[in-house]
């Protein structure tokens, strides 16, 4: 019985994800795209719940829907002015891109569908957070720290890049 609910949840979430992702790509207004992106991210969080990854779901919603989307919106605000109606257009290699993507889908879909996956031997343990914490802070502590440093560096780098370079400007003027 629980399987059916899981299935329903999966199909609903999957549909939301695919549709919102399509909208992200298709819409002509970049702001709308970002909004649909948020929808997509949130649904993804839901999908993670169906996969027994509750901590990840939380992270997903926090980081993606909460931080990334907002950041992108700010980015758009800094850049796009005037008419937002046609800020998100296709370029002239759209058809070729569609072809490549179709090929990718065919190949990936075929491979995903035909590969004989092993079935899980047992269920996912309940205490996901503890389990993750355990390996993250023991076995993967160095990547963890590196990730932290990476974030810091990215932060500094982003600030540096986005900062207005006064001298260059003066030079340009």
């Amino acid at each position: 019985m629980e399987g059916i609910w899981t299935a329903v949840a999966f199909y609903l979430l999957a549909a939301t994800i695919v549709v919102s992702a399509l909208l992200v790509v298709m819409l002509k207004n970049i702001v709308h795209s970002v909004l649909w992106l948020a929808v997509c991210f949130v649904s993804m969080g839901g999908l993670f719940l169906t996969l027994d990854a509750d901590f990840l779901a939380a992270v997903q919603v926090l980081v993606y829907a909460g931080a990334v989307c907002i950041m992108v919106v700010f980015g758009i605000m800094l850049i796009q002015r005037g008419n937002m109606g046609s800020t998100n257009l296709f370029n002239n290699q759209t058809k070729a891109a569609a072809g490549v993507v179709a090929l990718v889908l065919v190949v990936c879909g075929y491979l995903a569908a035909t590969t004989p996956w092993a079935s899980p031997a047992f269920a996912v343990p309940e205490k996901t957070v503890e389990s993750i914490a355990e390996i993250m802070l023991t076995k993967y502590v160095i990547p963890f720290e590196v990730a932290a440093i990476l974030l810091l560096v990215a932060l500094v780098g982003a600030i540096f890049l986005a900062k207005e370079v006064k001298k260059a400007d003066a030079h340009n003027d």
Partner: protein
Amino acid sequence: MLTTISLAHYMVLSALLFGIGLFGVLAKKNAIAVLICIELMLNAVNINLVAISKYLTPALFTGQLFAIFVITVAAAEVGVGLAIIIAIYRNRLSVNLDDFDWLKW
């Protein structure tokens, strides 16, 4: 068959999402849109990671852990990417990727 959600379902979903993201990356003019679509692709990967973690190695949690790392990196990437786009915009007054063909020389 439809009712039991197997790994293949997630795989196909992930492939779909990846394809949509890829399409966006290849076909959108706006640099920010491309950035967004890259996020979609990364999410597709995350789906895979988590799904495989659940269905193949439920006890190890490495899949989930990697997903976390991916999210971290993605966040950093978005930050830096946006910063780059802003810097470019400031110099070129454009975020249209069609205008950026400096790699030609």
